[in-house]
């Protein structure tokens, strides 16, 4: 079978997982990684879930891989921060069956709150990482990742970026591998699985030895390869940037890195010895460059001419290396006004922001569509850090006011984010006897990433009916009584305003739910 399809990087990763006999897919939605699991779940004989958050997803993945099932765990770059705790220790425990952590970075912050480079996590946690350059490679690298993970008994990263995940390239499909791992969970092996200091201390040596073996292997694996050109220009690149380099320097000698951690240091050093100067082309951090410099390579040119910020493009690389300026194309004397992202026309939750603005309150916000409440015409959000931060940050702001506490701070969070990590903050507020009003804008879905279900809307990733968390009972359980709990509909302006006023007046920790299903979600649901 040599069927060719035009697949996005995300579709190709899902297909690759299916072909590699991956049996378990877990993750948390986050642009640009979301579609991987949405597609993977449609294949037969796979077990999938949207976990409550990335930490939970990784922990489920640790278990299923140790139990002998090839597993992919998907998330975006900032999601990996949430999962960092299990990540570092899973490196010590190892994988058993293939355990592939797929992380999608977002250079240029198309849909993210920062521009961090996940390759640093590979180094920090001592976990190998491979990085494809197109959809065909993305598909094949899942199988390679599974094999490396099993061969070296380690979790492994498959790194994507927005322009790999969301670009479509031609991909040749293959048959599904009938994969059965020969080993399940070895429950007696507590020296490998129970990371108390005495056992973990010994495992650290295993990790260091494994890293050494991986680096040696990195010098031999064929995804780290040299493409000979005419010898006039020498460039080291990896992933997406390799395409840009090939585009503008088709005749260059190129060292294409497929395994970005551990790097094939010996092979790279030898490559560099053959030239007066070697260019390193990598988006975001000088990861490859710094590794080589630390290993004594001195003839490199990288971030001294290329930016650390934003996405690269063929012309950006060409201009930097040749010292020229590509013609900027046409221009006319007309201002192209911007189209800032806005809440959808008719979004039921716009009203709450209008009210909060009018009341002059300080709003601690969170991650989701409603972060747009910070911008005009709503202008009703004053801080937003990360998933779940709205509630604790509001607590801190209140503490900071000290005895001048004005009772004018509210947290605003969506249902999906509240389930992800908002509840923890609410429990913290209750436990520490803090005051403040928490407003959950419940639109019945995780809308920003494209309508994924969550623990507050009663369905799983496959659309199966499941438990719906009960806000009221949750409030009761942590000591928020009936007087401090309110549920209102998003369409009744006066009810919202009254509830905010009254709950703030109690000067006690309060939970207010504003119900209004997402319009796009309603339309989609209606079609089914």
């Amino acid at each position, binding site marked *: 079978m040599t069927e060719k399809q*035009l697949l996005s990087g995300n579709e190709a990763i899902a297909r690759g997982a299916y072909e590699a006999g991956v049996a378990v897919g877990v993750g948390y939605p986050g642009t640009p990684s979301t579609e991987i699991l949405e597609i993977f779940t449609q294949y037969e004989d796979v077990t999938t879930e949207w976990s409550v958050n990335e930490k939970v997803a990784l922990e489920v993945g640790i278990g299923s891989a140790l139990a002998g099932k090839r597993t992919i765990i998907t998330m975006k770059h900032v999601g990996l921060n949430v999962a960092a705790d299990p990540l570092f220790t899973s490196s010590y425990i190892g994988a058993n069956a293939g355990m592939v952590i797929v992380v999608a970075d977002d250079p240029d912050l198309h849909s993210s709150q920062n521009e961090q480079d996940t390759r640093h996590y590979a180094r920090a946690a001592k976990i190998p990482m491979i990085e494809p350059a197109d959809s065909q490679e993305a598909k094949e690298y899942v199988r390679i990742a599974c094999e490396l993970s099993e061969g070296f008994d380690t979790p492994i990263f498959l790194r994507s970026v927005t322009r790999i995940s969301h670009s479509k*390239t031609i991909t040749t499909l293959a048959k599904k591998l009938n994969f059965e791992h020969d080993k399940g969970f070895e429950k007696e092996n507590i020296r490998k699985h129970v990371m108390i200091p005495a056992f973990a201390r010994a495992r650290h040596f295993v990790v260091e030895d494994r890293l050494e073996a991986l680096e040696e292997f990195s010098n031999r694996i064929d995804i780290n390869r040299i493409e000979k050109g005419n010898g006039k220009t020498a460039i080291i690149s990896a992933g997406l940037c390799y395409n840009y380099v090939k585009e503008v320097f088709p005749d260059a000698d190129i060292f294409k890195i497929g395994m970005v951690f551990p790097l094939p240091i010996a092979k790279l050093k030898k490559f560099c010895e053959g030239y007066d100067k070697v260019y390193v082309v990598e988006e975001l951090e000088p990861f490859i460059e710094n590794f080589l410099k630390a290993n004594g390579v001195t003839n490199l040119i990288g971030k001294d001419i290329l930016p650390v910020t934003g996405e690269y493009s063929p012309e950006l690389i060409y201009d930097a290396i040749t010292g020229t300026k590509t013609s*900027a*194309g*046409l221009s006319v004397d007309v201002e192209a*006004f*911007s189209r800032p992202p806005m809440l959808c026309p008719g979004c039921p939750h716009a009203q709450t922001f209008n009210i909060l603005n009018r009341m002059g309150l300080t709003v601690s916000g969170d991650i989701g569509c409603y972060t747009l409440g910070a911008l005009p015409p709503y202008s009703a959000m004053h801080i937003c850090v990360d998933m779940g931060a709205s509630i604790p940050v509001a607590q801190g702001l209140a503490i900071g006011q000290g005895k001048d506490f004005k009772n004018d701070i509210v947290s605003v969070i969506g249902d999906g984010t509240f389930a992800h990590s908002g509840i923890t903050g609410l429990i913290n507020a209750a436990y520490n006897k803090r005051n403040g009003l928490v407003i959950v804008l419940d639109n019945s879905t995780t809308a920003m990433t494209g309508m994924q279900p969550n623990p507050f809307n009663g369905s799983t990733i496959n659309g199966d009916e499941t438990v719906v968390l009960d806000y009221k009972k949750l409030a009761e359980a942590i000591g928020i009584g009936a007087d401090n709990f309110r549920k209102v509909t998003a369409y009744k302006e006066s009810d919202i305003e009254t509830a905010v006023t009254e709950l703030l007046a109690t000067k006690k920790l309060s939970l207010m739910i504003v119900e209004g299903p997402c319009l796009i979600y309603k339309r989609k649901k209606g079609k089914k």
Partner: protein
Amino acid sequence: MSKITNILMVGVGGQGIMTASDLLAKAAMFDGHDVKKSEIHGMSQRGGSVFSHVRYGEKVFSPTIKKGEADILLSSEVIETVRWLSYANKDTKLILSNAYIKPDTVKEYPENVVETLKKEFTTSYVLEPKEINEKNGSMKVLNTTLLGVMSANLDISIESWEKAMEQSVPKGTLELNLKAFKLGRELV
């Protein structure tokens, strides 16, 4: 290296740019070309600026077009054309649907933009959406007519376009789409 064909398609979220560029990319693939298509989605359904790069030829590396090197700029909205002009040169063929979408944050839509744009391009096709919709007898296949205009400027076979349409358009709309496509070809 043989010539790669570069097509930039732009518009506003909700105008169907992604779907239309998918169709083009498939047609090019069915014609035996290597193809890459690049776009950014995530916030596009919220009325933002939308773009899609499609490149095809014998072997395509970069998924994005270099500035100034688009062979065709297809635009579903007037000001979006202005936004992406840096990817065009005077020989780029402009295919423009004369539509104006003004966000609430903007007071006045700039005037005489189409006339200004036309002067920049040696070849431009400006289609009146109202007129095209009337001829098509539907509001839903305007993009197919734009693709028809595009197809007359490309070397992709009709069979490949038709195969792409068979696979891509909603059930029961194939005839309508084929007709709209033909209309576009006749306008060239």
